[in-house]
């Protein structure tokens, strides 16, 4: 069940979401990372980062709040120790990058572009822009477009650049268009909307950071909506759908809305075997529905509706 991110072929459409599969090594006891469509790294930053204080997580109904704060060892250690492990095994690796300024994003793209084993760059636009009082790039079409275009310029011409979007914006389509105009070959959505929980016993925010990113099945309707709207506006742009996928049915929902690949994130914390399970379930569902190729199902829910549809669903 091949799929394509721009010109890059993936053997199957199931990826891991950034920040949810460790360095790959941690997932290895549960899943053959080389048999995933691709593994997306956690967001790599220039310098090492200690992240946020704990508590970094809180459970919410069908959701998880996290405020990890992009903890990581920095790009040098990533290139020296993490990427080679994946490259040696032949895993396809989407490297997520994050920075506080356009310059930092393009410096990261330059450092990574020729490293062996990088399949694509994913631009994590949910990073605060230090030059705009910490407003995240993903919330502003021009800032988002500028970052993407800087990364596109810095990266080798044949390395796809994926822009990762967030749902809690006024108009996700406007951001998507700005990214595509900036040179993004594909879009990844959704990153976590910002949420919060209060511990009513301590009478304090549950997370040390106060707010955090919401993930898990709770946000799937937001993900489906974003994928749907962006696919309607930009049908030619490949979309990696994610947000609360736990099963093949959930993955199919995103595919029918317009995603040509689907990433599993939070579900891995509950079921580290989920990548291959979701793939198998998706294959079965597509087969049952008579699809030979994934591509035939992508965006299919957009076709004009017939009045008989509802009758068909009756027993």
């Amino acid at each position, binding site marked *: 069940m091949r799929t394509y991110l721009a010109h890059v072929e993936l053997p199957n459409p199931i990826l891991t979401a950034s*920040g*949810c*599969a*460790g360095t790959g090594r*941690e*997932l290895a*006891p*549960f899943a053959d990372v080389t048999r995933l469509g691709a593994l997306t790294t*956690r*967001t790599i*930053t*220039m*310098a*090492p*980062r*200690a*992240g*946020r*204080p*704990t*508590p*970094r*997580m*809180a*459970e919410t*109904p*069908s*959701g*998880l709040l*996290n405020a*990890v*704060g*992009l*903890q*990581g*060892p*920095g790009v040098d250690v990533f290139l020296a120790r993490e990427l080679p492990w994946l490259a040696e095994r032949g895993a396809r690796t989407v490297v997520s990058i*994050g*920075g*506080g300024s356009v310059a*930092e994003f393009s410096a990261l793209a330059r450092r990574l572009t020729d490293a062996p084993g990088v399949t694509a760059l994913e631009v994590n636009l*949910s*990073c*605060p822009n*230090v030059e705009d009082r910490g407003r*995240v790039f993903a919330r502003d079409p021009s800032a988002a477009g500028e970052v993407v275009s800087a990364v596109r310029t810095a990266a080798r011409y044949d390395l796809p650049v994926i822009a990762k979007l967030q749902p809690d914006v006024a108009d996700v389509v406007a951001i998507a268009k700005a990214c595509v105009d900036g040179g993004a070959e594909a879009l990844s959505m959704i990153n976590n909307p910002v949420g919060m929980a209060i511990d009513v016993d301590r009478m304090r925010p549950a997370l*040390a950071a106060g707010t955090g990113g919401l993930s*898990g*099945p709770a946000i799937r309707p937001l993900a489906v909506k974003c994928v749907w709207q962006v696919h309607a506006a930009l049908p030619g742009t490949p979309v990696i759908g994610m947000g609360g996928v736990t099963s093949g049915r959930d993955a199919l929902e995103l595919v029918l809305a317009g995603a040509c690949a689907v990433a599993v994130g*939070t579900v*891995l*914390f*509950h*079921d*580290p075997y989920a990548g291959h399970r979701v793939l198998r379930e998706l294959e079965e569902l597509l087969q049952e529905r008579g699809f030979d190729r994934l591509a035939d199902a992508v965006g299919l829910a957009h076709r004009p509706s017939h009045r008989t549809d509802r009758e068909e669903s009756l027993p």
Partner: protein
Amino acid sequence: MRRVDAYHALTVVAPGIADRFRPGHFVTVAVGGPRTSTLTRRAFAVHDVKPDYGGTVELVFTVRGAGTAWLADRRARDPLDLIGPLGRPFPLPRDPATCLLVGSEYGAAALFALADALQQRNCRVDFVLGAASSDRVFGALRARRMAETATLTTRDGSLGVRGSVVDVLPGVIADTHADVVYACGPMSTLSGVTAVCAEFDIPVQVSVEELMACGIGLCMTCTVPVIGDDGVTRMTRACVDGPVFRGERVRFDDVGTIPFDAHGAPGGDRAR
């Protein structure tokens, strides 16, 4: 499923986990059943493993919130989804030594398999077990039976010495001439135990507890500031790099913060 005073003890047939178990390991349990709204697995120390039915694992827990309430409701033969054994177990001394095992509340549960393993290596084992009240002191009888000495403490004085395990620790270390201490319990207890051991200049192994979203090293939510072999403090995952650490390596006073001197602490770079 049994009740043991304030605790629930749950025995699960899990040969794969029982086989590979070493004292200090933990497991994570999926809670809530199909279509639950509770997404994260719950972590529990393995209390004991037995060879019955190919291998069973026993967990001991208190009901705290939704997940443990659900677990307490399980009936015989209900299937349960476990992942384990997880984490780095307690390191055992190479040569016979006098080992003091300190457990507070359900932390005590993790110490009995350790005691067995130590005794098999001809170590002397002593216990200090404590809790808020007598019904919450786990395993007092078994400790008394198997160990050289077992000192019990309760906050309300309903059993043993009134006070905390930390209060009695200096006396017990002095009496038993302990070579090494193992401790399990809340962070504040571990911090106190570590301070006492530092005074006596004996090594201490602590098993820490931090909120865990995955338990297997994927999510980075369970980090604790720990000083590495190179002297550098790093935000270190309790689930795969712990939960057992050398006590003096854990910066207890800085738990819940990013110490300014930690590797990658805020200062230069500021992306989220």
